[in-house]
């Protein structure tokens, strides 16, 4: 019995609809912010919103929140390594 309940996390349909609404709203926010001409801040805001949207997709649509620890460690760790690589290489180019 225990195994069966652990096997499938059945999410209500409406949860996915709420997730979709939040993603569309965030898209609207990022388009609006882009037309405000905030300069450097607009890049940071755009990336922050893209990061937030991706996290929502990963956790909800891709069910990472329901997976076991190995998934919850492995995937964020790989993404973190990519961010560090991009960050370090970029700063090397920028401040050389």
């Amino acid at each position: 019995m225990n195994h069966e309940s652990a096997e499938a996390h059945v999410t209500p349909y409406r949860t996915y609809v709420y997730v979709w609404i939040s993603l569309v709203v965030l898209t609207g926010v990022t388009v609006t912010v882009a037309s405000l001409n905030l300069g450097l801040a607009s890049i940071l805001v755009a990336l922050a919103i893209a990061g937030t949207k991706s996290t929502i997709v990963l956790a909800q649509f891709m069910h990472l929140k329901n997976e076991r620890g190995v998934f919850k460690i492995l995937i964020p760790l790989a993404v973190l390594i990519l961010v560090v690589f991009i960050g370090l290489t970029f700063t090397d180019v920028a401040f050389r």
Partner: protein
Amino acid sequence: MTDAAASTAIEHHHADAEGARLGMWLFLLSEIFLFGGLFLVYSVYRFKNPADFHAGAAEMSRFLGTLNTVVLLTSSLTMALSIAAIQRANRSLSSWMLGFTIALSLVFLVNKYFEWTAHIGRGIYPNSHYLLSQPKGTILFFGLYYTMTGLHGVHVLVGALVLTVMLVLVRKRVVDSKSYVLLENSGLYWHLVDIIWIFLFPLFYLIT
């Protein structure tokens, strides 16, 4: 005795599905690093040519970019609903949602076709006479634009083909409420394609 055998079978199946998902995730991580390298190239060239990248982005249709973003987000919703439906053994709803997902992927590609032909019609394509007369940064911007949206477009096309196979498998009951890891893994791939677009969209369409 039979009870014990049955529960072992369930455990066994459970482990297989999880292993299959983990394998899919490892593949997706390699995809993330493939695109990650391109994002790094983009950020360095953009840092070195801010004005040219700004001019290049001015050639983009913000409307079509936003439309395609909403199209892909909606296809991710229908994909997730398709899996949620098969979990509830609702084969009909699952098939419909898969069908919508495939249709939306084609809408995305048709929009992309209009965008690309509009640019090519104005003489903006790799090695074109017009583009070569532009500053170096603009040439780099459009080179990256065609490479990154092109590679992403190939992923959308592959995703549409995989989801079409899934639709056949759901109809044939190969994928059902007891064994749906194939559909889950196809969904993971589809959502990743969506995530890559989530980053491509602001970088190419929303530069100010």
